[in-house]
C-alpha cells in the first residue's frame, strides 16, 4: 500500500522536474487571468499617456525637425545627440543642474532632519508647529518665486537692500545661490514631513535601551535612529533628487536662464518651445529621461539593502 504511494509520487516528481515549472491548479490559473484582465485598463492608459510620448520623443530625437523649416525634416540618426552632447551650453546646463540638485538636496536633508526631530519631539502646540512648518510647501512655487524675485530686486526688495543693493540675480554664482535658497525654503518642509514619518517608526524602547547601553544623544541618533530610518531617508532623497533634477519654475521666474544659469529642463524648454526645434528639444528630453531613470535605478538598488533587520539584504 505505502509502496504504491511512494512509487506514484516518485513518478509525479520525475514528470514535473525536467520542466522546472510551477504547476498551477485550475483555480490559480483562472485567478491569474482575472488579475491580468483587471490590470489591463490601467496598463493601457499608462501606455497611452507615458509610453507613447516617450516613444514619440525618441522618434523625434532621431529627426532633423525644426518647425521654422518644416519641409527640411529628415531622418538623421544620432546626429542630434552628437550636436547636443558636444555643445558647451548643454554641458553648462548639466553642471548647473547637478550642482543645484546636490547642494539643495543636501541642505534640505540636513535641515529637514532637524525640523523632523523638532516636530517629533514637541509636546505642546504640536499642530501649530507642524502647520507653520509646512506653509512654504503649501504656496504655489511660481508665486513664491516672484516674491523672491521682488525681494532680491534692488530698489524694490528688502533682501537686496540688506545685501547692499547689489543686483544679485544678474551674476551667475549669486543667482544660483538665490535659486538654491528658494528651492530649499520651499521643499524642506516636504523633506521634513517624509523624515518625520520615518522617525515615528523608531520604537521608543530602542532609544531607552540605547541610553542605558551608554549611548549619548548623538550616538543614539547615528547608531540607532539613522539606520532604522534609512528606508525613509532614501524615499525622501529619491523624491527630492528627481524633483530637483528637473528644476524649472524657480529658475524661470528668478533668472530666466540668463548668465548661464539654465538647467537642463530650462535649456530643453528654450529649444523645444521657444526655438521650435523639435529634433534638438526631443533629444534633450530623452537625455533627461535617461538621467532620471539612472538616478531612480541607483536609489532602488540602495533600497534593496536598506530594510533593517533582514539577513538576506531585504529580499524577503
Amino acid at each position, binding site marked *: 500500500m505505502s509502496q504504491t504511494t511512494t512509487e506514484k509520487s516518485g513518478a509525479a516528481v520525475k514528470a514535473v522536474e525536467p520542466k522546472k515549472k510551477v504547476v498551477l491548479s485550475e483555480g490559480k490559473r483562472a485567478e491569474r487571468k482575472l488579475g491580468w484582465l483587471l490590470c489591463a485598463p490601467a496598463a493601457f492608459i499608462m501606455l497611452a499617456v507615458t509610453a507613447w510620448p516617450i516613444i514619440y520623443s525618441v522618434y523625434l530625437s532621431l529627426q532633423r525637425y525644426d518647425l521654422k523649416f518644416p519641409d527640411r525634416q529628415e531622418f538623421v540618426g544620432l546626429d542630434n545627440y552628437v550636436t547636443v552632447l558636444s555643445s558647451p551650453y548643454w554641458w553648462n546646463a548639466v553642471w548647473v543642474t547637478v550642482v543645484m540638485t546636490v547642494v539643495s538636496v543636501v541642505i534640505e536633508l540636513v535641515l529637514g532632519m532637524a525640523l523632523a526631530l523638532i516636530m517629533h519631539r514637541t509636546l505642546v502646540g504640536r499642530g501649530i508647529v507642524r502647520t507653520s512648518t509646512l506653509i512654504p510647501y503649501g504656496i504655489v512655487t511660481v508665486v513664491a518665486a516672484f516674491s523672491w524675485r521682488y525681494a532680491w530686486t534692488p530698489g524694490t526688495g528688502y533682501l537686496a537692500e540688506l545685501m547692499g543693493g547689489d543686483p544679485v540675480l544678474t551674476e551667475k554664482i549669486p543667482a544660483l545661490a538665490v535659486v538654491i535658497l528658494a528651492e530649499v525654503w520651499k521643499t524642506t518642509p516636504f523633506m521634513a514631513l517624509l523624515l518625520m514619518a520615518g522617525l515615528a517608526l523608531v520604537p521608543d524602547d530602542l532609544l*531607552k535601551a540605547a541610553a542605558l547601553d*551608554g*549611548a549619548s544623544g548623538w550616538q543614539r541618533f547615528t*547608531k540607532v535612529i539613522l539606520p532604522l530610518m534609512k528606508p525613509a531617508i532614501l524615499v525622501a532623497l529619491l523624491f527630492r533628487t528627481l524633483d530637483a533634477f528637473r528644476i524649472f519654475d524657480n529658475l524661470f521666474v528668478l533668472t530666466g536662464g540668463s548668465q548661464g544659469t539654465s538647467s537642463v529642463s530650462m535649456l530643453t524648454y528654450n529649444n523645444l518651445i521657444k526655438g521650435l526645434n523639435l529634433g534638438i528639444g526631443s533629444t534633450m528630453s530623452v537625455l533627461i529621461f535617461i538621467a532620471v531613470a539612472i538616478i531612480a535605478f541607483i536609489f532602488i538598488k540602495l533600497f534593496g539593502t536598506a530594510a533593517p533587520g533582514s539577513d538576506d539584504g531585504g529580499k524577503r
Partner: protein
Amino acid sequence: MAEIVLDKVTKKYPDGALAVQEVDIEIADGEFIILVGPSGCGKSTTLNMIAGLEDITTGELRIGGERVNERAPKDRDIAMVFQSYALYPHMTVRENMAFPLRLAKVDNATVEKKVNDAADILDLGQHLDRKPSNLSGGQRQRVAMGRAIVRSPKAFLMDEPLSNLDAKLRVQMRTSVSRLQKQLGTTMVYVTHDQTEAMTLGDRVVVMRGGAVQQIGAPQYLYDHPANLFVAGFIGSPSMNFVPAGLEDGVLRSPLGDVPLTDRIRRMVEAADAPREVIVGIRPEHFEDSKLVEEHQRGGGHTFTSNVDVLESMGSDKFAYFTLSGEQATSAELAELAADSGTAEAGSGGGVPIVTRISAASGAREGEQAEIWFNADKVQLFDPATGRNLTYSEE
C-alpha cells in the same frame, strides 16, 4: 554591584497623573527583588526612575550610597531588559550584545570574549550572526538578557521580560532567570504582574497598588501574613476565599455558619480593635473533606455542608468549588482585584464562591452534597473599610 535605596520616591507625570507615591524600598546588594501589582500600579514607572529614563519628582534614589537622581541613564551603570526586548533590528545578535561594550570603547579581544561567554551562558552560540527578526521569541528574550549581562552592570532591571512568551516557555525561562541571577549574584529588580512569577523568583516581593507600596517581604511571609486585603487577595493561586461576617461576642456569623474564634485569634482581634462587620479570609488549602479529618483535629475547626459545583482533580489533590448562600464580601480592594483579574462580572452571580483544595482521597462528587471542614485557627480577619488585616502579627 551595589545596593539601591528608594527614599520617599514620588513620580508625578506632566499631565498631573500621580503614578508613584512616596515609595520606600531598600534593595540589598545582590538581592533579587520583585515589584508586583496589577497593571497601571506604577511598577514600570518605578523601574524607569531607577534606570534614569524618568525623572524623579520628589524623593531620593541612591545607588551604592550615592545620590543619583540627576545622573543620566548611561552614567548609572545599570542594564535593563524590556518587555519588547528592544533589540536593534539592524544589528546581528553579536552586534546587539557587543553594543554596550563598543560604546564603552572596550578593546576587540575583550568584546569578543565577553560576547562569547554570554552566548555560552544563554545558549546562543549558533545564533550569533543572525538578525533578531529571524529569531523566535524565546531566543530574542535571551539576546536581550545577553546584552544586559555582557557589561557586568551594578544592577539588572527587568520589566515584564517574560510576558510576551507562551506559557510553557515562560515557565522554562523563569527558572533560567532565577539560575542566572544566582550565578551572577548581581542585584536584580524584576517587574511582573504575575503573582506566580513573584512567588517563585524573588528573595523579596514588593506588592504595589495605585502607586503605593502595600507590603514588602519574602514570598512565603506575604502569603502567610498579608498586611491587608489587597495583598491577601493578590498573592496565592487560586486566591484566598473572602466571606463577609458579623463579629459578635467572639463568634463569626457568616455564610460558613457560626464560627467561634480561637483564643489566639480572639486576642489579636481584641488588640486590633475590630469593627462589628469584618471580612473572613481562608486559603483554599485550609479546607478538607471532613471525612478525612482525624477525630482529634476536628475540634480545632468548623464544618459546613454544601453542594459541589465543580470538582477538578489535579492528581495530587482536588479543587472543589462551592457557592454558599449570602452576600459576597465587598470592599474597594476586592473590587480592584476582581477588575484586574477580569472576574468582576463572572463572580457577581449571587452567593459566595468558595474554592477549596482537598485531599485526592476525598470521595466528594460533582453535583452532590459534601461536608467540608476548615481550620478555624487559620482564618484571617480584615476590616472591610480600610482593608487592614486584623489578625496581622509580625512574627
